[in-house]
């Protein structure tokens, strides 16, 4: 058995009530592991895109895609090729600021990671940072020393590179 890895599955779904429920329910029922799931608008207002990161081996991934495709409200679904994918995640990180000296250190770190400080209080900073999950992990690692008060990550969203798409064609 090959080891399971994180794979990104992208689904174009009808933008109507109940669709997220049936997708989430399918994962629970079939014993698939969701690492993260994001839902948002697409270029067409009646369609939404669900981006799911699953921890799966090849066989399980095949089932994930096929079972999702079976749902009537899933218009199109595919795995995004890991070699040709752009993934992004956004995180809001509230960092503890014990002293003025550390405040400066943290802010320079934020700049290195191309993040932004979006809120400042006497004892804390809120940082917005966008990037691959790895980049966010690395930033959070650096912040450990000062102390992360609160963290909100969106989970990843993704598209495949180049002209290829999994868009719905009428």
């Amino acid at each position, binding site marked *: 058995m090959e080891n399971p890895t994180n794979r990104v599955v992208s689904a174009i*779904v*009808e933008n109507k009530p*109940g669709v997220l*429920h*049936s997708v989430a*329910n*399918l994962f629970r*029922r079939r014993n698939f592991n969701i690492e993260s799931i994001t839902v948002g608008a697409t270029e067409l207002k009646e369609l939404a895109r669900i981006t799911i990161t699953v921890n799966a081996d090849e*066989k399980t991934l*095949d*089932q994930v895609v*096929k*079972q999702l*495709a*079976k*749902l*009537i*409200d*899933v*218009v*199109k679904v595919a795995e995004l090729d890991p070699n040709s994918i752009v993934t992004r995640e956004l995180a809001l990180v509230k960092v503890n600021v014990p002293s003025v000296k550390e405040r400066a250190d943290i802010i320079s770190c934020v700049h290195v990671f191309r993040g932004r400080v979006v809120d400042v209080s006497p004892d804390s900073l809120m940082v917005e940072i966008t990037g691959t999950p790895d980049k966010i992990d690395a930033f959070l690692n650096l912040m450990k020393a000062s102390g992360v008060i609160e963290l909100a990550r969106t989970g990843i969203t993704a598209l495949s590179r180049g002209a290829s798409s999994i868009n*719905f064609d*009428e």
Partner: protein
Amino acid sequence: MTKMSGAKALIQSLENQKVDIIFGILGGAILPVYDALCDTKKIRHILARHEQGAAHAAEGYARASGRPGICMATSGPGATNLVTGIANAYMDSSPIIALTGQVPATGVNTSYMIGRDAFQEADIIGITTAITKANYQPRSVHEIPTIINTAFYVATTGRPGPVLVDLPKNVQADTAEVVFTDKIDARGYRPVKEPNLTAISQAADLLAKAERPIILAGGGTIISNASDELAKMSDMLMAPVATTFMGKGAFPECHPLSVGSIGMHGNPAANRLMGEADVLLAVGTRFSDRATANLNSFVPNAMKIHIDVDAAEIGKNIDVDVSVIGDAKIALQMLYTATEKNLQKEQNGSWAKRVREVKEKLNPLLKETPKDLNPKTLLTELRKLLPESAIVTTEVGQNQMWSALYFKALKPRSFISSGGLGTMGFGFPAAIGAKVACPDRPVVDIAGDGSFLMTEQELACSVAENIPVTVIVLNNSVLGMVAQWQRMLYKKRYMAVNLGKTPDFVKLAEAYGAQGIRVASIAEFQAAIKKALKSKVTTVIDVPIGSEEDVVPFVPPGCGLPQQMGDY
């Protein structure tokens, strides 16, 4: 364009789908639809006595006729009582449409009732998401025709299955201008009919060179009406045909190449030959664990071809060498043509000889064979007494597995049983549904005392609605199948399986106005069946059998198909 109520729009949409029968029970939240039923002459409503009965009857109707079966219930408990029947139809891929009432979307004191835990409110959409192909809840009258069209299209095409439409009471009662069209709203749903040519030619290559081919026909063969194509294929390849339990009837079991059904309680000849084949052609089966037993010894020596209309079944339970995604009937036609061209003619007949030999040698034997009223004798006798056109349903448990072993199904859609979900209480209401679909054919439910008691209240329905069927109660006063497991696998530590003093089934039948007959010998059984077949009213035949009779052979859990316990 006409102005009409949602309820009327629903009835009209159902009529447009050629619905002539609805099995249901009414209640507060579905009253507008029942009111609209007063004004149609095209639809007969059959009042079940429990919603589970209505759902199973709809499935019996669907499986006997090939047309979608309709069941209807009110909101809350009415809807939740349908759930077992819907789950059953989902597992066995039967096209049924479940219509449920729902509390009004808008209320007197509120703009929104749904979600406020109103009287008899249940989230049936949420509850049935995992056991329906799709479910819908129209929020305005004008949506109804398209939703009903879509529900029927989804339920009956591809791999069929149940679809639920939940109707808020205000949507039933409101009036609006309604346009009836053929429009279907399911762009994400594109069932494949015709398989890919490359897959067909790969499969044909394997079959043309096969020395010991075997065909495994599943329920999908029956659903796609592919029995003729199956028979042609078997004939060309001289391949024995095994079926899954759900495939029983796809191929006449009296045919010299029929080896019966495989599985935990399968025919030993079928189980044995699966292990000897060099090419397996599996048609419309999902390789259920009860059919395959331990996968490590399931058809270990064969190249495997899998035809299925549901792509998600390919590779779900077993890995195959060639997958053919498409409708079984079309796939078999294409495969026949492709194989015929390359068929290696010089068959030496050794495989056919081996099949004959195994069939003769491996015959399931019963412990209590001397006894007159034993399942084997009874069911063999029943086959002789019933015309070929008869439809048989079964309950679930020993009665069902004995039927699989000893009752030879001769035609597709003539053997109807709860295969996937294993729902005790399925057989009797399913028999009622089958009889409604095929009023000119005799319908017999082979039952156990335990499972018949789960839905026996439908005797009231069958008598009141003049739907005469025959129920054969193989009465052993125990929940026999679990008792057998406790006997074989739990050191005879019997717990909660003894039914003690079961009701007097003759009196029970008579209490409902049906006919009850108790038999004490095979001669009396023969007479009772003959009487039942002529009866204008439902007949319950009580047949006492030994309480320790096992279903053997038996592949214990964890073992492979060849490791069958029992004498054969």
